[in-house]
């Protein structure tokens, strides 16, 4: 499917519109839920960390430090991607699957259009903007943590911000975004594959969406493990 995606490209004037539409559907359309989840989970990470520090010898800066590390390294890139496998992945599988069931893909093929290029390529390009979503998740996660810390009275703003800056390793940002690019590829291709090659009717579209979510999540978890082993160990 990947090789076929680059053969017989669709006219650029048409492809440009498809890419913009997919950026709107997959990236802009995900910002609301990503912002909501990131903000509140950032808050919860902070509260959990603060409540588990009962030793007075442990500095309060650790709350900010732990929040930053959790959000930057795992929560924003990996767990947000699993949530996106449910949102974006299901959308991709069900929209392409419905096109298969209702013969819209056959209609494209009869017209001599490379349907894989027409349907999957714009999604892959749109998902190249996925790191932008993850950046917002990282930012709002930390802000959520800061708010929870201030309003919960777990530490002072200064302590939290000092913690955020403590032992900062810039490579962790690179590591997070390398993972994010890999997840973006997975999020665009696995759901597309399950939608494109599905057979049957409406019930099977639902089944394909579920299967695609499962396999996309599995792929994300495995890639996360391998990327961590390769890049951080």
């Amino acid at each position, binding site marked *: 499917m990947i090789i076929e995606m680059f053969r*017989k490209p*669709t*006219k650029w*004037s*048409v492809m440009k519109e498809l890419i913009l*539409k997919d950026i709107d559907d997959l990236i802009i359309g995900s910002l609301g839920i990503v912002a909501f989840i990131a903000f509140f989970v950032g808050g919860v990470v902070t509260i959990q960390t603060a409540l588990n520090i009962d030793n007075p010898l442990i500095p309060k800066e650790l709350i900010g430090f732990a929040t930053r590390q959790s959000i930057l390294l795992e929560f924003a890139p990996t767990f947000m991607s699993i949530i996106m496998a449910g949102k974006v992945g299901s959308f991709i599988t069900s929209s392409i699957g*419905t*096109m298969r069931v*209702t*013969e*819209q893909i*056959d*209609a494209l*093929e*009869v*017209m*001599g*259009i490379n349907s894989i290029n027409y349907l999957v390529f714009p999604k892959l390009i749109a998902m190249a903007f996925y790191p932008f979503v993850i950046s917002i998740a990282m930012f709002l996660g930390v802000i959520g943590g800061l708010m929870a810390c201030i309003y919960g009275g777990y530490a002072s703003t200064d302590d939290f911000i000092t913690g955020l800056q403590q032992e900062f390793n810039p490579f962790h940002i690179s590591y997070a975004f390398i993972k994010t690019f890999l997840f973006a590829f997975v999020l665009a291709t696995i759901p597309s594959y399950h939608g494109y090659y599905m057979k049957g009717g409406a019930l099977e579209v639902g089944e394909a969406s579920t299967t695609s979510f499962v396999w996309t999540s599995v792929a994300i978890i495995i890639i996360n493990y391998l990327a961590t082993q390769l890049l951080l160990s």
Partner: protein
Amino acid sequence: MIEVKKLHKSFGEAHILKGISQTFYQGKTNLIIGQSGSGKSVFLKCLLGLYDYEEGSIEYDGEVFANLSEAKKRDMRAKIGMVFQGSALFDSLTIEENVMFPLRMFTKLTKNDMRERANIVLKRVNLEDAHKKMPSEASGGMQKRVAIARAIVNNPKYLFCDEPNSGLDPKTAIVIDNLIHEITEEYKITTVINTHDMNSVMEIGDNIMFLKDGIKAWEGTKDDIFRTDNKVVTDFVYSSNLFKKVREAVLKENK
């Protein structure tokens, strides 16, 4: 004109098409009829190049489709219009955008010219007021007419229709049949229709091929079908009492 010679198609052990030869004429509505499972849809998909076949050939005005280069196949496909059983309109596009779609893909017309052409065709299928609607807002009959408009907008030489009036009420079905027939004659298109609707056969069957178990069992016109004594055909076509009575009346009148 489309000429099919000794076409064979199998799926694994199942031999679906067994050496079918048939000519589909320009400016005529060529019908393929037969029971469900007789191989009609597979035959149509072979004609459209959606399925490869093992033996035989399909010639579009003397050119064997399978032997064409990729670029020529693409050019050939631009000359093909297809009306799918379920209309297959693109959900995310308006009716007007659906009709403009082949123009956007295969021509260098400006957006205004495309819109103008789409509106002419929509008017031809009596849908001049529906161009801003989404396909989901259109009735089954309207969707079929949009599908016909999309199929003919790029002036195709060949028009294929898979059960164009399935799921429609008898009155709308006749409107669709007549529309396809008129367009075929008006634009001198080679039209191939896959159907098991006997009303269509009686109304617009210029050239009818009857398929049974992957074999061409009979060929003729809508007038021939009243006179044939081919048992396989009569068993299928006159399975309803209504058509039996129509046939008796026609034969009586012709005596």
